[in-house]
């Protein structure tokens, strides 16, 4: 800590008793602290979810493996999916939105700071509820168990007859509670973006980051709530003897599928749009050019949001819908590819003619572009319904959506960590460890998920705890598992980088990347009030205007 003393005045880090500091964190309503809480919380669950993934991969390394029982395996994939979507991806993206949106629009906090804290703690307790099921799923008197119904929890597998005990209830309650938290955060982001912008920050001048999080929040309002409604119905079925999804009483299993996927598919976009937001900040800064086609990027995002709400039943091509319904959902699903493609082109357009600096953040952004391209193309294959009849529910579809979630969302997220860590902590992340992290993760990712497509094409269904030796899936699965472990090592390097750079990283200064948005105009980390005087802006890149008074953006917009 001796190097600190030179640069940071000692009074800044006046030591308080740890209880006081803990109390400050627990009772905080500051958007930056809550953002950090979200991110740390999500990273913790990332380790849980990753651990579950590794158990799955050990079990599948070879046929007829007995590493875990089928019961444990089923819990692992259920918990892995639920954890990664609801308690890693959602909170970490909300965390960045919480931290960055007010800074980027020149505000001192979110619109509703207390609602913000409430939302975070709802989500936090949701995750605890989910994991408490390991102890309490069958009641504390017996061996507990975690939910094992898959993260879609298709009816009637969740009915009391097929899912006794309380594990499914913990799953339902965890998602219901964290869902309310997400809705609270979404309301907060919308109100913040619409009502808290600093003078001059018109909607047309907002950083794309704020725009995309606004659109994402709007989607949360409309699409997360159907899941909450369906969860309430499931609880009514399980506790009050209702018949919503009870086939014996005329209830419909298909109705649950519709309700779940009305949420489930837009959810993918709720996760990917904030990743687009990261991309739209990182790519321009490291290409040294403004984002290409800003209005088109906004329009494409809004377009994605709308179209993505009418594609849900492409998860249900095998359910036996009419050929007209199948055709409808096939074309809407393909249509989503158009605005998404436009976005990819615009990022390439941003890089085109620039001077790309290959910092770790940019490497991850480029990795995103490459993988998201492939994920989009396998998505087109899955959108062609007849092809989907073969591919869905197989390892091909697993590979596809991990390409989206890991190759896309997680890569963009890693980029965001390398990009904003200096702002959040005041320290640079180690570029040397960062390069190790990037290359190892990239290799692990491709070894794992490129190969994973193939067993799907060879007929391997998802969610099986073991398989027959005569199917020719053994070698492929072994390779996939090796790739998973390489990614695991890369994640550990990343976590080590986060921890060690916090103590030993180079001083970041206000603006280490020579960037253009308002968060880089204040100190790193920003003071509690963000800005001593509220900024006034005249263009989309206020700091560019400041650094280039002879050629400000405001002349061109």
């Amino acid at each position, binding site marked *: 800590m001796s190097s600190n003393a030179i640069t940071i005045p000692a009074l800044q880090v006046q030591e308080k008793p740890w209880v006081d500091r803990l109390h400050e964190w627990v009772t905080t309503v500051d958007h930056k602290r809550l953002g950090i809480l979200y991110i740390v919380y999500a990273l913790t669950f990332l380790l849980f979810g990753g651990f579950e993934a590794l158990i799955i991969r050990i079990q599948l390394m070879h046929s007829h493996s007995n590493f875990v029982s089928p019961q444990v395996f089923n819990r692992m994939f259920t918990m892995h999916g639920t954890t990664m979507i609801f308690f890693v991806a959602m909170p970490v993206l909300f965390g960045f939105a919480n931290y960055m949106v007010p800074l980027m629009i020149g505000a001192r906090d979110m619109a509703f700071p207390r609602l913000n804290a409430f939302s975070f703690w709802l989500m936090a307790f949701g995750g605890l509820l989910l994991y408490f099921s390991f102890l309490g799923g069958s009641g504390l008197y017996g061996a507990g168990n975690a939910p094992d119904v898959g993260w879609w929890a298709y009816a009637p597998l969740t009915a009391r007859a097929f899912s006794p005990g309380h594990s499914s209830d913990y799953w339902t309650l965890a998602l219901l509670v964290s869902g309310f938290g997400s809705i609270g955060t979404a309301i907060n982001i919308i109100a*913040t973006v619409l*009502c808290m912008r600093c003078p001059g920050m018109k909607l047309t001048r907002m950083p794309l980051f704020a725009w995309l999080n606004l659109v994402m929040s709007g989607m949360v*309002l409309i699409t997360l709530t159907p899941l909450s409604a369906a969860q309430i119905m499931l609880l009514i079925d399980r506790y009050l003897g209702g018949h*919503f999804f009870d086939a014996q009483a005329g*209830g419909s299993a298909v109705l649950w599928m519709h309700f779940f996927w009305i949420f489930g598919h837009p959810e993918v976009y709720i996760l990917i749009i904030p990743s687009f937001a990261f991309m739209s900040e990182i790519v321009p800064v490291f290409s040294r050019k403004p984002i290409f086609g800003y209005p088109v990027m906004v329009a494409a995002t809004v377009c994605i949001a709308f179209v993505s709400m009418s594609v849900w039943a492409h998860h249900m091509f095998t359910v036996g819908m009419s050929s007209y319904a199948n055709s409808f959902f096939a074309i809407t699903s393909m249509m989503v590819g158009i605005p998404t493609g436009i976005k990819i082109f615009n990022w390439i357009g941003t890089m085109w003619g620039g001077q790309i600096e290959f910092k770790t953040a940019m490497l991850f952004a480029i990795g995103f572009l490459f993988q998201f391209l492939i994920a989009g193309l396998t998505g087109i294959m899955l959108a062609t319904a007849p092809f989907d009849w073969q591919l869905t529910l197989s390892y091909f579809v697993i590979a596809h959506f991990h390409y989206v979630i890991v190759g896309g969302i997680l890569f963009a997220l890693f980029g965001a960590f390398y990009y904003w860590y200096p702002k959040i902590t005041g320290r640079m992340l180690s570029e040397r460890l960062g390069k190790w992290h990037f290359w190892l993760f990239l290799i692990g990712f491709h070894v794992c998920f490129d190969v994973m497509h193939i067993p799907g094409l060879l007929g391997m269904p998802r969610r099986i705890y073991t398989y027959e030796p005569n199917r020719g899936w053994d070698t492929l699965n072994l390779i996939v598992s090796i790739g998973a472990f390489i990614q695991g090592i890369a994640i550990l390097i990343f976590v080590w980088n986060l921890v060690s750079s916090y103590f030993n990283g180079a001083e970041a200064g206000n603006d280490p990347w020579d960037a253009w948005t308002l968060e880089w*105009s204040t100190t790193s980390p920003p003071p509690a009030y963000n800005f001593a005087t509220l900024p006034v802006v005249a263009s989309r890149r*206020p*700091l560019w205007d400041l650094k280039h008074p002879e050629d400000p953006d405001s002349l061109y917009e």
Partner: protein
Amino acid sequence: MSAATIPPVEMPQSWTLPYRAKVGMVSLIIAESAIFTIFVVAYLFYLGKSISGPTPKEVLETPIFFTICLLSSSLTIHFAGRSLERNHRGAFLGLWALTILLGGLFLIGTGMEWHRLIYQHGLTISTNLFGTTYYSLVGLHAFHVTAGLIMLTIVLLFALAGKVQQDQFRRVDTLALYWHFVDAVWVVVFTVVYIVGR
């Protein structure tokens, strides 16, 4: 800790942004609408699919009086807000209390209907699909009325203590927005359950 560089930009002449409480409430209403939509869809989807009785035709009676109560409470709360805006404290207090009374009457109506259905017709939430969807849809609405009444009552208590000032009319209007939403949902629920559903 000097907050560094502020871009040297002229302050725009006028800079007004929407009222954040209203934006927040509208967002909440959008989210709530989606929840109600799902319950309404479930109700409509399961119309006539119950395997056993009773059916809506046999047991439901249209609650016209209580519907009038609830819908007119939208008017009273609106004029309560206007009274506060003009600083007519007495009128505000009276109209606000009337709103709570009308909302309370509506809840009593729902309670009486449920009592009749349960004890006279033996229809509970677990009887058949109609029971399941009916009680959850109407119950979800009644839950929102209850939540609204609690919030209205809190405001009433503050008002009685003289803590609700003229300049707070926008906050009161935000709450009124929620109450209008609850009424609007009832129009939908009423149409679906008592008109389409029979």
